[in-house]
């Protein structure tokens, strides 16, 4: 295992590049359109989960409203491309920026809040965005949604087959991983992680916590918006009920199962969840029961997720674990004394 690790660390760039090139050949090997669609879904959710992971996993805020940012991106793309004929490639960053602005708006009240208050504000925002999308008939089409979103064009090529979307999602996903990796290794990423580990300590060391928290929200929202913009023409039809809080919880479950605070976790989580929900389709509602049981079991057995480190702060952490040991002992004594 160590040999593999050292080999990987030595030739990291080369291996990842080779993996990317290999991934490019997937639609050539797999011909079934249905399968390609599933893989597209996996890639899309991997990026969406990754964007949530940038918030939850790296700065330790519990954002529950990722579906809202996703919704903003999808509607921006759908409305602008359908009504004004804006190019898809221009819309990707534009939708990202729209979502980012909303992310800034969400982060403003949350700067004074922490923990659970923050979660409820993000959840409330996501619901408000969905309800506005559902009721603003003249712009968003209300509960009928938006149909026939134009397909993206690539040098005159109409990209309507899932196989083309595969490349779009792959490139966005790879770009997301690359940029996030760079950001996390920069000053900004270190600031986020210091906030996650201990906000007071980070503040006392001169980290502008409110600024970086705000930046963190905007970063996560940006990528959710981008992937939302790519999602709209992929499904070709969007309506508000695709962006309920359940979608948000679904994405959250992916990063929890995969492992928060790791880059590979969301990818693993989205792959597992998509395979599970698609392959168990014959069980109808029971598959959600199984899904829910898996989430609970993950929290009991591995709260840090499948690939998360066991000494991560998200698993009860190094610093807190020592405290816990002491507390547990004192509690045992207390109980013994009482009974």
């Amino acid at each position, binding site marked *: 295992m160590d040999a593999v690790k050292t080999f990987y660390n030595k030739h990291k760039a080369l291996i990842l590049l080779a993996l990317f090139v290999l991934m490019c050949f997937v639609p050539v090997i797999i011909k079934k359109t249905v399968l390609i669609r599933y893989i597209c879904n996996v890639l899309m959710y991997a990026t969406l989960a990754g964007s949530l992971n940038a918030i*939850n996993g790296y700065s330790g805020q*519990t954002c529950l409203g990722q579906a809202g940012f996703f919704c903003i991106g999808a509607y921006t793309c759908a409305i602008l491309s359908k009504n004004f004929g804006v190019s898809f490639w221009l819309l990707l960053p534009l939708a990202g920026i729209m979502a980012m602005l909303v992310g800034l708006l969400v982060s*403003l*009240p949350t700067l*004074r*809040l922490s*923990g*659970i*208050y923050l*979660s*409820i*504000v993000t*959840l*409330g*925002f996501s*619901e*408000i965005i969905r*309800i*506005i999308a*559902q*009721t603003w008939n003249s712009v968003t089409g209300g509960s009928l949604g938006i149909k026939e979103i134009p397909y993206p064009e690539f040098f005159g090529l109409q990209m309507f087959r899932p196989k083309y979307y595969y490349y779009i999602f792959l490139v966005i996903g790879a770009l997301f991983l690359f940029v996030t990796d760079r950001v996390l290794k920069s000053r900004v990423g270190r600031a986020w992680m210091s906030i996650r580990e201990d906000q007071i300590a980070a503040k006392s060391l001169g980290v502008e916590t409110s600024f970086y928290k705000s930046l963190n929200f905007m970063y996560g929202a940006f990528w959710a918006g981008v992937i939302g913009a790519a999602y709209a023409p992929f499904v070709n039809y969007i309506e508000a009920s695709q962006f309920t*809080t359940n979608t948000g*919880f679904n994405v*959250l*479950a992916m990063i*929890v199962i995969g492992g928060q605070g790791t880059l590979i976790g969301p990818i693993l989580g989205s792959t597992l969840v998509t395979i599970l929900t698609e392959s168990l389709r014959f069980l109808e*509602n*029971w598959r*959600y*029961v199984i*899904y*829910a*049981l898996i*989430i*609970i079991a993950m*929290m*009991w057995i591995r*709260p840090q997720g499948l690939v998360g480190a066991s000494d991560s*702060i*998200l*698993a*009860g*952490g190094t610093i*807190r674990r020592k*405290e*816990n040991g002491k*507390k*547990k002992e*004192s*509690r045992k004594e*207390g*109980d013994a*004394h*009482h*009974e």
Partner: protein
Amino acid sequence: MEYFIAQLINGLCQGAIYALMAIGYSVIVGVVGMVTFTYGEIMMIGAFAAYYTFQAIGNNLPVAILAAFSASFLVGIVVYKLCYERFFNAPRHISLLCTIGISMLIKNLAQIFFGPDTKPVLNIIDNKTFTAHIGSISVDIKLLQIIVICLVIVFALALTMFFNKTKAGIALRAVSQSKEASYMMGINVKRTAMLGNCIGCGFGGIAGILLSIYYYSVSATMGGSYSIKAFSSSVLGGLVDIRFSALGGLCIGVIENLGITISSATFRDVFAFGFLILVLIVRPQGFAKKKGARV
């Protein structure tokens, strides 16, 4: 003007139900110290327990309330064992995600066992309307609304009595103030926390049956937005304070209903959440005077 007053009364009645939800929620958060996303499903369980009681023995409201309370109470034990007991010292998000998992579990099991369709709950209370004349304005109040408001007040008072006069209630208050100190005073904290969670859940169940009577229907997915609303009301009251939570619930109910008089009914939730976010920006601690554990 008459429409406005009618909406105000609707708002007060709905706010009263929200207040009961918020009271239960604050008891859970105050005593256990962790938030829950299972609350909407707990309410749904209570409502279904009442529905099947109505089916079995006819329209007997007290028995149905008892059934709703005990069903939710029992589910509360399961929730406590699965979501809280192990995670008192773990990071908060772990138990939070656990409650989300349980919420999905209960919702889908309910859809499987109770069926996905909406079931009617009719004629539990006679459809009588009282009309009061104040000057030139006549105000209609339904018997249903009066009964709902009275029930909420009775239960809120009963809970206050329980917290102030009984030994178990005082233990609950002690645990909500400090778990460590309660250990030292010889309180079995785990059992008390479980009792607190179950009482909170039981009140959720009662709120569920009141909602089902108020809207004449019960369905497996009814919990959804009420979970967030109970949460919002309780946040308005500073999360752990019972009286202020009740006030928060009342406020949200009134603001929702006044809000939809000036726009359409689909914007109901926008007003609720918008008001919450506004309050959180101005006063993060809600209506409560200070932040901290106080029931």
